[in-house]
């Protein structure tokens, strides 16, 4: 086999890995949509907020320090500690759970039985509010995120595969961070599936997803379920924030990763957890292979963004509910 063939395989593998990163973001959307029918526009900002909070805890940053200093003329910045990554992750998770309570108490509770578009609008407001709040709490500078996940090409894999493809091939390149993301995504999805299939809360969650009214009639508390779902989505956002933030530092453009999740959702469906994963993999591989085979050599490159949407659109034409989404039947 020629080196070019193996380079193609390398692009394919990296496409799969990139797809997993997209799926991590898409998962949060699916969880909330499945349980409440809300398309949560704020999911990308939740990833940003979670990552900002995590770094803030790690570095012992005083929240709202700029505001406090401006009002009281103080010079506060840090508590002076460096929190271990695991503890900081737990604290950030605590904040995301608190956030879920606040969202349910002050937004969702007041919007029960409203049109989906109203709920969608509420999440747009929430997104901008959180972005501003994150800025005010933690500042808008770029923060280095290091929770101990290794980065850089996997040298072992490179060396072991270097013999393939002759002199022009240097072995397969896979980023350690992406490998970790894949492992974490696998654990996350398995846990979510087990949780929804085999726990009482999980079954209640599925009941709410199937039919709100029926779930209420058998005594399931919609409000509790919403808090749980938003908490889990907050946890997924934290994982996505860690993975993406490790690549680029934690900064406000992190919220734009939601754009990468949209074609995944269009393709995988808004209600299927496996759909989010498979959709992510198809989008990741599709866009990377298109860029490798056609985009870069013939179209000047930078085709990934639009190709992902075009691919998703193509699927939509033939299967509007997505690959794994439930067919929506409106009875007249």
């Amino acid at each position, binding site marked *: 086999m020629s080196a070019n063939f193996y*380079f193609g395989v*390398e*692009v394919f593998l*990296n496409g799969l*890995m*990139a797809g997993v*990163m997209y799926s991590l973001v898409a998962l949060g959307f699916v969880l909330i949509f499945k349980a409440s029918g809300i398309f949560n526009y704020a999911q990308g900002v939740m990833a940003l907020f979670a990552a900002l909070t995590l770094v803030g805890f790690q570095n012992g940053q005083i929240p709202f320090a*700029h505001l406090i*200093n401006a009002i009281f*003329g103080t010079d506060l*910045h840090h508590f002076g500690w460096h929190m271990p990554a695991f503890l900081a992750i737990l604290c950030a998770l605590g904040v995301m759970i608190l956030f879920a309570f606040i969202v349910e108490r002050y937004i969702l509770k007041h919007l029960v039985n409203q049109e989906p578009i109203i709920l969608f609008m509420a999440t747009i407001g929430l997104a901008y509010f959180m972005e*501003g709040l994150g*800025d005010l709490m933690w500042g*808008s*500078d*770029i*923060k*280095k*995120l*290091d929770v101990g996940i290794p*980065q*850089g*090409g996997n040298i072992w894999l490179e060396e072991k595969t270097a013999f393939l493809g002759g002199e022009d091939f*240097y072995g397969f*390149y896979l*980023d350690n961070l992406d490998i970790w993301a894949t492992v974490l995504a696998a654990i996350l999805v398995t846990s979510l599936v087990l949780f929804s299939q085999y726990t009482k809360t999980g079954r209640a969650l599925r009941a709410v997803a199937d039919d709100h009214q029926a779930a209420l009639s058998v005594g399931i508390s919609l409000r509790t379920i919403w808090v749980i779902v938003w908490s889990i989505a907050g946890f997924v956002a934290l994982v996505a924030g860690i993975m*993406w933030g490790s*690549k*680029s*530092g934690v*900064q*406000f*453009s*992190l*919220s*734009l*990763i939601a754009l*990468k999740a949209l074609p995944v959702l269009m393709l995988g469906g808004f209600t299927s957890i496996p759909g989010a994963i498979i959709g992510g993999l198809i989008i990741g591989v599709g866009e*990377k292979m298109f*860029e*490798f085979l056609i*985009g*870069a050599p013939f179209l*000047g*490159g*930078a085709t*990934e*963004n639009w190709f992902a949407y075009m691919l998703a659109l193509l699927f939509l034409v033939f299967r509007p509910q997505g690959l794994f989404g439930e067919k929506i039947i409106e009875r007249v």
Partner: protein
Amino acid sequence: MKMTKLAAFAATAMTMASPVLADLVFPSLSYRTGPYAAGGIPFADGYADYFTMVNARDGGIGGVPIKMIECETGYNTEKGVECYESTKGEGALVYQPLSTGITYQLIPKVTADGIPLHTMGYGRTSAANGKVFSNVFNYPANYWNGASNAVNHILDLNGGDINGKTIALVYHNSAYGKEPIRTLEELSKKHGFKLSLLAVDHPGQEQKSQWLQIRREKPDYVVMYGWGVMNQVAVQEAANIRFPMENFIGIWWSGGEHDVLPAGDAANGYKALTFHGVGKDYPVFADVQKYVVEPGNAAGAGDQIGTAVYNRGFYAAMLAVEAAKTAQEIHGVKDITPAMMRDGMEALVIDEAKMTALGMPNFGPSFSVSCENHGGPGLGGVAQWDAGAKEWKLISDFAPSDMEVIGDLIVEDSMAFAAENNIEERCK
């Protein structure tokens, strides 16, 4: 009693009759929010702190206080134009929008309104031709100078011969990122290197394809025209594929501390171009500390002083103040108008003696602006990141760019603009 009232009235009348000097208005079209805030904040802080220092230390420019009006653009072109429209009526003397997109929209507006526009190191490169662009200035260097500065540095590293070498351009897929392509293509013909183009779509969070391509093609050097998150991801990806950092050269907009710090030690050796000094080892920063930071008047937290992009904002404000002084000298009035400011910018002379007197020795190149040349000399230096010390180190002098190539391109592009817009050449 009547006499007292009369005296008071006379005194008031006399005060009102004497000329009252209005403030000199310098709008700051900044972006402290959004995905590009990390670069926007230090620039805005540097720009504001210089004006604050001049007000506190010198009582303004020629005794007239400076009034800086800040307007948030979020790096959004529409908002930038709104900021321009809402502030121009305040007597704005010069605009520096820190965005190529906003610049393109403002060029016809400032020309019609008679207000100068200074796009230092960005914007429309061919605006360097003052014969066509009466109100636009982009001294002391522009994008095309940057491309040539990068190639010149590579030439220096290779004893002046890069025939057969490959240079990859990783660029933001926008008007800004595409600016150097034409220049690099011309330089490629001249020096015989192979140019490989790799576009990165906004915002640049995902660049796996581009860096896998670089890993496959193994270019000798990578030049980057990035902004925002694209820079941090590119530096990290380059480190991931173990591309030699000393062969990776970013334009000045890819050369902030925030661009390299997230990658940690892996970013060590990365290079970036600059047209001004780096670090805080300049006497003027003692004044900033004394007149701005200590009284609690710093634009930000006061922690950006000496960073690359802060220094750029600071330098931009210094050039604006010196142009205002020149305008005051030319016209013999303190209370200058935007038209006078334009004249001051066109007659600006920056030399080492002036910079030393300002407490900024060797902070930037010496240059003069003329009616024909609004772009300055196009001198650029190279800074290298020291990850251990967490600071940029200038590793070259401010060296000239290839004006033989760039000059022709500027004339060609600006004359096409003049023909499209029926602009008659000035400076005859």
